[in-house]
């Protein structure tokens, strides 16, 4: 599959002697049509990375290509094929949504008639059809975010960079925004590079996720792959319920298994922490002890917990 975004050892340092390393040797790639989530704590280097990818900041070292264009030498070519919703984003309060979008549209080679049609079409797409001729100064935060997405789409980009696209907006607005982004990827094949603090959002719409902490990319993969990373590192937590035998007796037998690290009896059930792949062995031991497994499930680990474990919080 075609690679739309790729970086190799991308590094950005600040300070007189480059003592503050905001992004450290970042190497990643994002395939065409993929929705890539970029998560990390505040100050982890998400926005700096995004700024380097769209040519707003020059890397201290390393390289990167977006849509095949070099992020240092071909900045304008990159901006011609990408759409960006930065954070913070501001627009011209004294102009209407149509006038604002028209202004951005003029910066691209779009025929006037087509531009005017696209302006209306985009504002309708983001749910601002009723506010086309309203001044931006009177827009709510949610409306501004929607407008931000419209301005990012004015050039029909093949890659979208979205920095915190749902921050500060209500749950309904956030959901609509997420649906819009998903649709853009699904229906138009747009590659999305999304930075967010909302794990729900990332889990819902992203195909793959990159976790960055203190400037370093510490994990990349699907949610399941990230879970596996945590499982490999910390083991798996199971909840086990057994009939025909007292829980304490089963717990005693399980403690003898090498791949089981901790066993705890609570409310008639058994909570245990074991290595990945120990599931069969646990079931065998229970069976050999004369018990019958009535419940054996892995404790659900949502992305929030995966993220916290990965960054070592």
């Amino acid at each position, binding site marked *: 599959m075609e690679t739309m975004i790729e970086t190799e050892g991308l590094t950005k340092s600040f300070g007189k002697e480059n003592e503050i390393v905001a992004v450290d040797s970042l190497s990643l790639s994002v395939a065409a049509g993929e929705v890539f989530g970029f998560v990390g704590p505040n100050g982890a280097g998400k926005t700096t990375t995004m700024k380097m990818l769209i040519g707003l900041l020059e890397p201290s070292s390393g390289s990167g290509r977006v849509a095949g264009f070099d992020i240092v030498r071909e900045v304008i070519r990159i*901006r011609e094929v990408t759409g*960006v919703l930065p954070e*913070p984003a501001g627009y011209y309060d004294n102009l209407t949504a149509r006038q604002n979008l028209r202004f*951005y549209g003029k*910066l691209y080679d779009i025929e006037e008639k087509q531009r005017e049609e696209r302006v209306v079409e985009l504002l309708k797409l983001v749910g601002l059809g009723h506010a086309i001729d309203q001044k931006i100064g009177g827009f709510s935060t949610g409306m501004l975010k929607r407008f931000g997405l419209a301005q990012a789409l004015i050039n029909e980009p093949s890659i979208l960079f979205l920095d915190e696209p749902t921050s500060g907006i209500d749950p309904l607005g956030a959901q609509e925004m997420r649906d819009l982004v998903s649709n853009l990827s699904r229906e138009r094949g747009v590659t999305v590079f999304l930075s967010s603090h909302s794990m729900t959002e990332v889990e819902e719409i992203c195909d793959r996720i990159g976790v960055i902490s203190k400037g370093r990319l510490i994990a990349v993969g699907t949610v399941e792959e990230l879970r596996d990373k945590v499982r490999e590192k910390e083991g798996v937590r199971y909840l086990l319920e057994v009939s025909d035998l007292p829980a304490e007796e089963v717990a005693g037998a399980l403690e003898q298994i090498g791949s089981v690290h901790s066993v705890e009896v609570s409310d008639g059930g058994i909570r245990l922490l074991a290595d990945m792949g120990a599931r069969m062995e646990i079931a065998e031991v229970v069976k050999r002890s004369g018990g019958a497994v009535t419940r054996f499930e892995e404790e659900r680990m949502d992305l929030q917990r995966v993220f916290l474990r990965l960054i070592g919080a």
Partner: protein
Amino acid sequence: MENNIKNVIIIAQKEFADHIWSPRFLGFAITFTLIVFVFGYQKGTEVDYLEHLLGMDGMLRGFLGIARIVGSFAPLIGIALGFDTIVREVKSSSLNVLLTHPVFRDNIIAGKIIGSALCLFLILLISITVSTGTMLTISGVSADGEDILRIGIFIILTFFYTLTFLGIGVITSILVKNSSNSLVYNIAIWLFFTILFSQIILSCVYTLTGGMEGSIEVAVGSGVLNLSPGHHYAQVAMGANNVGWGGSLGGDPRIAGIFDTHFTLTQWLAEFWMNLVVLIVTPIILLITAFIAFLRKDITR
């Protein structure tokens, strides 16, 4: 290259339109035009009195009066156009968004300067045409082609003078953190150059030498005065040392500026060419400085 020019024009158009439709700026420009108009009207009524009762060149004095009032207050238009050019966009984060589109930073600053300069020129053209036209109409004196040419040159001189303050305004707007600070600094610069500067020089020279009669004192005084953009403007427009209340440092030139019809335009040019060069070069240097400052600044939030 073609795209760059197109982008500069788009940004200049927007900047121009923003100024023209801004109630704050419109209010300011109308007030300035009214002041100059009223002054032109008053000078027009005085022409007959000055010429017939006092035997003075009423028209010349009228034009010099207009030049003095324009020279004193026109810099405020430059300041009003420039003081928040960049800081406003940085604060509102609109620059953050604009820079994600295919425009170079130099397109942005060039477009903004051109848009503001066009707006400045338009306001000066209207206000000076209205005031001089009013004065001529009220006085009943008919203007010939050369008079109109002199008025045209005066508008261009005033434009370059005011452009200096636009340049200072844009530089300040790049360097400071908020618009109100920028405005205060610009007003202080205006007050310093139009009112205080020549007074300070006068006081300093007088205090240090005990008088203003000697040639050394005059040379020192006029040399320092060369640092003020107002001095060069006052020389070419009025044949005076400063637009404000500058005393008589350095002695007045024999030609009373662009409106002195006792001398030809060639004679005027020969007398003031040095001031003219400084008047034109100063804003260009300032605008280039603004350009470089903007390109070097971390402007994203």
